[in-house]
C-alpha cells in the first residue's frame, strides 16, 4: 500500500487544532491551579496554596451547594415542564405542525440570550408589565427578581427549547406499533405512558435532563441578572476572581471542581441511560 496522504489531510487538523486550542488551555488551567501567586503575580510552581485557600472557605462550599441544587432543580423542572409539550408534539399533532414547532424552537438559538434575560428583567420587575397586569386583578405586586424564582425563569429560558427538541425527537422515534400493542393488550393510557413510552424514550429524556443540568450549572447570566447573584454561584465566583485582581489560579480551582462535578454527573447519567433496567 502507498502512504496515504489523503487520509491524514482529513484526520490530522482536528487533532492538531484541539491539542493547541482546547486541550492546551484546559491543561494550562489545571497547571495554573498549582501556581504560586505573590504580590499579584503568578509564578509557575507546584503548591497547594490555591486549593487550600478555596477548599477551606465556607463561601466556596455555599456557592457549590447553591449551584448544584439549582442545576438539579432546573434539570428536573425542565424535564417535567417539557415532557407534556414534547408528548403533545410527538403524538397529538401532524407532521407538518411538528416540523414547524421544532423550527420555532430553534429560533431562540439565534436570539441573544442576554437580550432575552434583559427582557425578563423588565417583565418581572416590581413595576414591570406582569405585576401591572396582576395589579389590575388586585394581586401583588410580587418581587420576582433577585430570587431563586428569577434564576429559574432564566434557566428555563436557556434550556427549555433544547430539552423539548431532544424529548420530541426521541418520543417521535418510538415505534407506534409498540404503543398500539400495549393498548391492544389492555394497558390503560397511563400505564402505557409509564410502562412503554417513558422506558422507550428513556435515553432522550435523560440526555435532555443532562443538557439542562450542564447548561444551568455553568450559566452565570441568569443567577447574576435575575437572581441578584446572592448567593453567588460557582460561575459568578469564577468571574469575580478572574475579573478582579488576577486571581486566575483560584478561579482555576473552582473551574476544575465544576468540571469534575459535571464529569461525575455525565457518567452517572450515561450509566442510567444505557445501563440495564432494574426490574
Amino acid at each position, binding site marked *: 500500500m502507498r502512504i496515504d496522504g*489523503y*487520509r491524514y*489531510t*482529513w*484526520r490530522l*487538523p*482536528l*487533532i492538531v*487544532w*484541539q491539542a493547541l*486550542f*482546547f486541550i*492546551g*488551555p*484546559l491543561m*494550562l*488551567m489545571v497547571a495554573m491551579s498549582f501556581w504560586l501567586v505573590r504580590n499579584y503575580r503568578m509564578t509557575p510552581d507546584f503548591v497547594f496554596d490555591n486549593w487550600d485557600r478555596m477548599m477551606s472557605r465556607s463561601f466556596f462550599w455555599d456557592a457549590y451547594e447553591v449551584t448544584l441544587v439549582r442545576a438539579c432543580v432546573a434539570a428536573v423542572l425542565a424535564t417535567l415542564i417539557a415532557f407534556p*409539550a414534547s408528548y*403533545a*408534539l410527538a403524538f397529538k399533532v401532524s407532521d407538518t405542525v411538528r416540523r414547524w*414547532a421544532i423550527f*420555532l424552537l430553534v*429560533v*431562540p*438559538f*439565534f*436570539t*441573544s440570550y*442576554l*437580550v*432575552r*434575560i*434583559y*427582557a*425578563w428583567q*423588565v*417583565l418581572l*420587575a416590581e413595576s*414591570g*408589565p406582569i405585576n401591572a*397586569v396582576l395589579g389590575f386583578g388586585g394581586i401583588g405586586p410580587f418581587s420576582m427578581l433577585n430570587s431563586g424564582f428569577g434564576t429559574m425563569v432564566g434557566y*428555563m*429560558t436557556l434550556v*427549555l*427549547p433544547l430539552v423539548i427538541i431532544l424529548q420530541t425527537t426521541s418520543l417521535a422515534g418510538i415505534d407506534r406499533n409498540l404503543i398500539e400493542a400495549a393498548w391492544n393488550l389492555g394497558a390503560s393510557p397511563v400505564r402505557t405512558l409509564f410502562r412503554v413510552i417513558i422506558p422507550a424514550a428513556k435515553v432522550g429524556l435523560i440526555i435532555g435532563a443532562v443538557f439542562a443540568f*450542564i447548561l444551568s*450549572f*455553568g*450559566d*452565570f447570566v441568569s443567577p447574576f441578572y435575575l437572581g441578584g447573584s446572592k448567593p453567588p454561584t460557582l*460561575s459568578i465566583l*469564577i*468571574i469575580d476572581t*478572574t475579573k478582579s485582581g488576577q486571581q*486566575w489560579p483560584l478561579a*482555576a480551582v473552582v*473551574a476544575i471542581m*465544576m*468540571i469534575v462535578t459535571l464529569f461525575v454527573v*455525565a457518567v452517572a447519567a450515561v450509566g442510567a441511560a444505557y445501563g440495564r433496567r432494574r426490574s
Partner: protein
Amino acid sequence: MLYLAIVFAFVFAPIITSMIFSFNSDRFPTVPLGEFTTHWYETAFSRPEVWEAMQNSLIVALTAATLSTALGFATAYTDYRYNFRFKSAYIALALLPPTIPLVIMGLAMLAWLARLGISGTLTGIIIAHTVMAAPFAMAICRLRLSQMDPALEAAAWNLGASQWRAMRSVVVPFCLPAIVSAFCLTAAVSFDEFVVAWFVSGLNKTVPVVILEILQGNVDPQINAIGTFVFLTSMTLVVVAQLLITRRRKA
C-alpha cells in the same frame, strides 16, 4: 394544546417583548405601553462603538464559521470513511467542547491566549469561537454523510476519479447543503456568543459583549434595539441558507 401554547408563550415571551420594547418610549416599560419611537435605534446606532462591534462581530463570525466548518467537515468525513485505533477518543475530542461551561472555557482560553500573546485580539476570539462551534459543524456534516451511499465515492474512483477528485466532484457536492447550513449555524453561534468573547476580547469587543457591558452599566432599552437588529440579521442568514438549499434541490 393549551399547555403547548403556554410553553411556547414562555419561550417566546422574552423575544417578542424585547422587540416591542425596542419601539417603546418608556425607559422602564410597563403596561400600558408608552408611545412608539425609534429613539433607541437612533441612539444605539449613533454610537461608534456599536458600529465597531458590528464590524468585529462580522469578521469574527465569518472567519470562525469558515474555520469551524472546514474542521467539522474534515472530522465528519474522517468518522464516516475511516476506522482506526482510538477512534472513539478522536470523536470524543471532537465533540467535547460544548460540554465545558462557557465561563471555564473563557478562563482557560484567556490564560492560554495570554501566554501566546494574542489575548485581546480578534484572532483570539476567532480561535475560541472555532473551538466552540466546530462540533456543531461536525454534527451537521456527519448527519448528511450518513445519508450518502458509501458506494457513491467508490463509484467515482471506479470511474477514474482519484481520491481528491472524488472528494471534489462527489463528496463535497453531495454535502453542500450541509456545508452551507453548518457555515450559517456556526456563524450564528459565534455572532451570539458573549461569555468567552467577553473574557478574551479586551478592547476589541463584539456586539454581544457590548450588550453585556450596557447591561452591567445603566440598563437601557438600546439593548432591545441592538438585540432585535442582531436577531433579524441571524434569522435572515438562516432563511437565506434554507432558501439556497431548497432551490438547489429543485434545480
